[in-house]
């Protein structure tokens, strides 16, 4: 079992469809002040924060070195500073590396994304593809995910009703989450009649355009008590990346997620999921991904997704009580949103949506097209 790292505090703004009147610097400052007021952490180079880590993306921010725009508001000037332009959950892995190596005691980790800034989300994700084999074809995360959806729905007997139920439930759960994007409550019929986006994905099957920012303080075990009486421990982290070309991989195999989960569990010294976890937060960019990732981390067997949804597995296993990414978190930050929900739940601070007796949670995130990159973190109190 590896050494553990504490999350001492989290802060966030409410997920919003279009924060046009707030710069992302403003959004981060709100979170930054939230962190400082909760922890009184200092920027003393001996005893305080020596390294600040941020998560953002150049293309989405429409400037290179996107962290350059925000180092002042996150207190990064005159100290160590690093940015990850990768799914935000991986920032926890980076922070753990800084802390467990002994180079840092405390890491301030902040992230932002304003999806509303771009004219077209597809135009941004199209740039994730190489310029001559894939990009000219118009590949983007939506149409590539759609192909994964078609393949997965066939192997796991997922039908339109299942997908509709996932969306309906996500919206309902999000109503209990004060930080969730405000979305209309929908019924099964609304979802099934929602226009097709890229067959078989419908508009309501896909997460909506969202702006959001977050912050968190991570700290070594020894000093955690200086900042909180209720640390949440990260006991396992792993990620895994699949082949780049879509045709190189089995779109339904969940190879990378299985690999990441297995390694994260091993680090945490946990044998299997059964009876060991009270809740799971999974990064569902699209409705089909919720049962698919549930298969990937091993809550259910491969191919059982449809049956499991029909039998009420999502509620029984406390999957995405927050509303999930499907209700609206920006790309890149879905993982941080999952971690933050687990943090509240494990501290018993999730109010109306509190899972009773939550002691251990698993947060997962994915990035790239069709779940190419997967990351898993195990959190405990």
């Amino acid at each position, binding site marked *: 079992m590896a050494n553990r790292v504490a999350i001492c505090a989290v802060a966030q703004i409410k997920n919003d469809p279009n924060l046009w009147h707030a710069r992302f610097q403003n959004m981060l400052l709100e979170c930054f002040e939230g962190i400082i007021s909760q922890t009184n952490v200092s920027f003393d180079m001996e005893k305080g924060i020596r390294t600040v880590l941020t998560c953002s993306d150049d293309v989405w921010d429409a400037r290179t070195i996107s962290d350059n725009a925000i180092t002042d508001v996150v207190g990064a000037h005159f100290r160590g500073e690093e940015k990850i332009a990768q799914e935000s959950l991986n920032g926890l892995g980076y922070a753990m590396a800084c802390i467990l190596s002994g180079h840092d005691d405390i890491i301030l980790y902040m992230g932002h994304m304003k999806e509303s800034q771009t004219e077209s989300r597809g135009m941004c994700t199209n740039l994730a593809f190489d310029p001559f084999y894939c990009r000219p074809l118009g590949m983007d995360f939506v149409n590539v995910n759609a*192909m994964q959806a078609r393949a997965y729905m066939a192997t796991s007997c997922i039908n339109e009703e299942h997908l509709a139920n996932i969306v309906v439930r996500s919206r309902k759960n999000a109503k209990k989450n004060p930080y969730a994007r405000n979305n209309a409550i929908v019924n099964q019929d609304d979802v099934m009649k929602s226009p097709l986006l890229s067959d078989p994905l419908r508009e309501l099957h896909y997460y909506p355009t969202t702006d959001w920012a977050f912050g968190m303080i991570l700290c070594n075990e020894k000093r955690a008590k200086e900042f909180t009486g209720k640390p949440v421990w990260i006991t396992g982290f792993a990620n895994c990346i699949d082949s780049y070309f879509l045709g190189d991989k089995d779109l339904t195999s969940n190879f990378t997620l299985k690999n990441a989960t297995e390694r994260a569990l091993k680090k945490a010294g946990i044998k299997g999921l059964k009876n060991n976890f009270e809740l799971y937060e999974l990064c569902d960019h699209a409705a089909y991904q919720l049962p698919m990732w549930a298969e990937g981390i091993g809550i259910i067997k491969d191919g059982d997704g449809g049956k499991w949804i029909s039998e009420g597995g999502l509620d029984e296993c406390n999957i995405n009580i927050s509303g999930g990414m499907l209700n609206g978190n920006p790309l890149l930050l879905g993982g941080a949103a999952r971690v933050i929900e687990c943090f509240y739940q494990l501290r018993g601070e999730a109010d109306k949506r509190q899972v009773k007796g939550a002691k251990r949670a698993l947060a997962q995130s994915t990035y790239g097209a069709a779940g190419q990159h997967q990351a898993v973190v195990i959190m405990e109190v």
Partner: protein
Amino acid sequence: MALEYDKKDCFIVEGKLALPYSYFAGRVGSTFITTLRDKKKIMGVKCPVCNKVYLPPRQTCERDLTDIRDNWVEVQPAGEVINFTVVRYDDKYLPRKAPFVMALIKLDGADTPIVHILDGVSPEEVVIGMKVEAVFSSSPTNNILDIAHFAPKKPEKVYVSQRKVSAKEKEGGQPISDEQKLKQERRKEMSKKVIITAALSGAATMKNQNQAVPYTPQEFAEESYKCYKAGAAMIHVHAREDNGMPTHDHKRIKDTHDAIKEKCPELIVNLSSAVGMGKTPEQRISQILYVKPEIASLNTNTMNFSIVDRKTGKVFIDFIFENTFTMLQDFGKAMEENNIKPEVEVYDLGGLDNWFLIAKQGFFTKPYNFNFVWGVAGGMEFRPDMFMVMKHAVPEDANFTTCGVGTEQFPAVTLSCMVGGHMRVGLEDNIRIPTGELAKGSYEQVEWAVKIAQILGKEPATPDEAREIMGIKKQ
């Protein structure tokens, strides 16, 4: 909870990232792209250890880390669909207007499928397992679009020598009926016929250019009769006022139409739905519906339709000829509903594609009749290669005629006649005969067209034969 900042005086900066760049495709990628571009071959690489054939090719097998960069194998340009989606949103980076099909296609001889666009099939008809083949781009793109797209695989070619008389006979069924035989023979006979149209006036040719341009109904009737006697089967009409101005006046147009029909009842009168410069859509279509000719022109694209000095390039009159999709649709529908055959005016390939798009609505009745128009300032100059492209682009069973402005008139109609199309001449398009002299009238150009037909072994169609070919119901 939600951020509620002051929203007064907030300024949004609109910007755009546009970054030209060059990108080395890599040595493996370079070979792939250039072989695809220059030889129309799709190359993969095979791992000698695990025997996997990778497409797109790469330097190293990711499974066993074997260096595979030189182990090229050619894969087939055909394969099957293993997954697909129908992209139903439009965006600037997408290569097609929605909806279009994006598919994972496993080519024969490759182990890894590739993503590509699937055209030539409606989204509803795509199924997993469908056999498809690559359609190579006619001009280089230097990326994967050197395969322009994939399309459903055509059945294997059957050579004429192997073909039986009919499909039914092949299956051991009944031979074709006498009635069918008669129809076939009739079709063969009619293929020798060429329809000559005389466009007497247009909207812009004036008497000061050629005295024979008709203005009054009586002049139209006289000119039409002469053309009929010379061998024309159809007259194309833009009616004029006495002072020569093109008119949308219903009565004047009807009088002109009726005068021709009275003088020469056999002739087909083809009315213009363009009328002249600056006419509203309503003025353009209402006169057609009022007069109800047997056939009328239907224009396919909004374009420059200007008067420009051919020698100096100086612009004399600039004019936008408006033919929106809605007009193409509404005019076309109105004509079909009133038994008026549309003659589809095609000034460039885009216009033809516009017609194909609207034709998807299904209201145009066969046979379709196209007129390829050359030499309009704003359209295309006559080029034989382009003519053939247009001929091949129209449906196989469609009719086509052609007209060309000025000296392009006779080369265009000659080629058309040679390759199975029809001919339009007349003072609307050209005021001279091939010798360079002013034409005595449109009829003199008809005489020249008849000569061309005879040289090419064709016969001018009578008006009734023209009706049969073009699918016109005599009124």
